[in-house]
């Protein structure tokens, strides 16, 4: 199949940004900067890959930023609690990781079950759980910050900062997630079902697809990825608070949209999402490196890009129909 303009558009924009960045500042292409950009993209990126499935199936999840903060909070509490018994070792950290990942799956299940079983709009459900998770982490931290024990933090640190040469673990995890996501969307029955449901859930139902179950699984997959990204996020700062992961949900949704996945569902592009994530973090990075435009205008430029991406895709679609 030949690549169409929908896929190429964001890619061209990404390449243009890289060229622009390189022209503006020679430090842009330095390995340290690239590692930095990619590693910071990884959290949103992994979440955005999960979000691609949810949106493609015709859903939405606004709770992921709060969920990440909440998972980071309970993972830290679990590790601190296990420390006296298990000591300062990987066993304790594995417990924290397990809590984050299982908690993520459970939170995704909660969202998905409310949407598919109780038949409440995804927007409403996840707006509600967004507030709940955010409030819970603030309450657990008693309004302040939950900090991981200092010794454990030192042990855990390499999970974010370490890696294979310049390629740190978050980058590896992001890449693996992207490859797996792309494979699932393109080559598995689940991916096919997700696209079918988002395209027309009645047709899916009349094709013997268990629509509720597939939708539920998309939210659980997203929850799992939020958990995984939390596992990588905690060693970065070693703490969680009420302001952790703020606006991550919107960045993830924006990346999905920029990447060419239709917000109404039916057409999922995992590679596009990856490109979308990179575009968003490159804009941020370029503004910080070059003093052409104030970094305070970052949000405005990202906003323009999001609207532009959607407008361009829509025009192409009507052109197709003629």
């Amino acid at each position, binding site marked *: 199949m030949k690549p169409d303009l929908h896929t190429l558009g964001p890619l061209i924009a990404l390449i243009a940004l890289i060229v622009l960045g390189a022209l503006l500042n020679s430090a842009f292409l330095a390995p340290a900067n690239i590692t930095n950009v990619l590693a910071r993209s990884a959290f949103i990126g992994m979440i955005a890959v999960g979000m691609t499935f949810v949106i493609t199936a015709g859903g939405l999840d606004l709770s992921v930023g709060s969920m990440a903060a909440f998972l980071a909070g309970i993972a830290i509490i679990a590790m601190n609690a296990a420390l006296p018994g298990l000591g300062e070792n990987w066993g304790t950290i594995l417990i924290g990781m397990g809590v984050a990942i299982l908690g993520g799956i459970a939170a995704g299940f909660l969202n998905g079950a409310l949407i598919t079983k109780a038949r409440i709009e995804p927007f409403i459900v996840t707006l509600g759980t967004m507030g709940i998770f955010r409030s819970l982490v603030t309450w657990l931290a008693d309004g302040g910050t939950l900090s991981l024990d200092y010794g454990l933090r030192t042990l855990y640190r390499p999970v974010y900062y370490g890696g294979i040469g310049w390629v740190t673990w978050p980058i590896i995890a992001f890449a693996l997630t992207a490859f797996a996501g792309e494979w699932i969307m393109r*080559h598995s029955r689940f991916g096919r079902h997700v696209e*079918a449901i988002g395209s027309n859930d*009645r047709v899916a139902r*009349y094709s013997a697809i*268990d629509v509720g179950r597939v939708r539920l699984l998309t939210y659980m997959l997203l929850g799992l990825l939020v958990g995984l990204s939390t596992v990588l996020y905690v060693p970065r700062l070693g703490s969680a608070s009420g302001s952790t992961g703020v606006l991550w949900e919107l960045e993830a949704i924006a990346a999905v949209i920029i990447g060419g996945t239709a917000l109404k569902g039916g057409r999922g592009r995992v590679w596009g999402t990856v490109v979308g994530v990179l575009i968003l973090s490159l804009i941020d990075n370029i503004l910080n490196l070059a003093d052409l435009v104030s970094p305070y205008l970052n949000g405005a430029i990202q906003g323009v890009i999001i609207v532009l991406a959607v407008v361009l895709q829509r025009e192409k679609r009507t052109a197709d129909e003629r």
Partner: protein
Amino acid sequence: MTVLALHGVSKSFGPIEVLHDVDLALDPGQVHALIGENGAGKSTIMKILGGFLDPTEGQILLDGKPVRFSSGPEAEAQGIVVIHQEFNLAADLSVAANVFLGREPGGLRLDHKAMRRDTAALLARLDTRISPDTLIRDLSVPDRQMVEIAKALSRNARVLIMDEPSAVLTHREVGTLYDQIDRLRADGVAILYCSHRLDEVAHLADRITVLRDGRVVRQAMRGEMTEDDMAAAMVGRELQDFYPPKGRPSPDPALDLQGLSVPGRVHDVSLTLHRGEVLGIAGLVGSGRTELAEGIVGLRSATGEIRVNGQKVAIRNLRDAFDSGLAYLTEDRKEAGLLLDKGLTQNLTLADLPRFGLWRLDQRAETEALAHATQEFDIRAPDPAMIAGKLSGGNQQKLLLAKTMLPDPQIIIIDEPTRGIDVGTKQQIYAFIRRLADEGRSLIVISSEMAEVIGLADRVLVMREGRIAGEVTGKDMTEDKIVRLAMGVSGEAA
């Protein structure tokens, strides 16, 4: 003096002519009934009169002068109002707000008082007790219909076009509707009344026009036609070898239903489908045919006993039905059958993906399946990579048939096999259906086209109000007999 008339009107959609040289006149103070089978062209006439379609040939005459409406609102401005079967009301607004929707009196501030007063006057004229302040969502269906009529009157309707107004009403509510129609008639409104119910046509109409295959076959004044005459005029067409020869079903039962009910829709249906048989199910739209089919295959919850090849089976969902060798081809090709924005392959294999791999879907095998299906069912796709929505209706239907047949079902229920497709493709699909039966599969074909059911089926069951009203076989398989059973008209043809 005729208000609105069609003179020599023909209408074609592409190569297909749906109306041919139709003359029709609506006079003030008269109810003109328009009857005909599904597909006879009634709705096309309504759309042309209401300004939603232009005739290909012929004229629309308003007060004797030729007119051309470019849109529904333009026709409405001339006092021609269509009341659609699906009401055109905003459920969350009040009755008064709906009546004046789009033409609200007042300047910056709406003149609520005038709206309420005028609405109350209109409702009083219709002799109803609806309050102008009630929300539409709190009204019963017949009351909503009254609001539609009030809305039409507020637009100074001189011509009212009603599409099956009684279809949504209960027996008692129909009485109220008749009273309102009498009142409108006395007021000098010209009414075009489309209906399936011959008894009400005989009761209401001053004038009757019978359509068949897009032509006016009979026009009569009140009292000149009996219900039997109407039924005979509506049907009565020669069946040529448009249909494949009938088959020889084996006596073995393939599917056996005992007391199948779908709550509120289908009541206590028992039937037996034999191996190699094409069993037709006829009946009016809304008689429970689709609901019966969906009840059998687990798309609706149903009670009763289902036996496949003599074995009792439990079907809770469509997957269970597939596992028992059943398949269902939906009547709603665009909304339940195909993913119009997806490729042909994705559509073909959607219901049978496990066959193409447990984890990784074998896309080469899928492509081969498509090649096989396009050949077997003669799907004409200019480009195999195109999306299903760009296929013609006939090719979409063939693709849907191929999708339904992919899991190799032994019992296939086909709901409206040829809706909205051209004559040539119809004949092909009939041949496919007969071939499937000759191969030893068993089929149920649900259709609103009497000729199709008779031409295709070995035996026909007629449904009426959620029950089997009767069975016709052999020489008794005539449109006349089926129409009688479907409409509950007793007695023999003249």
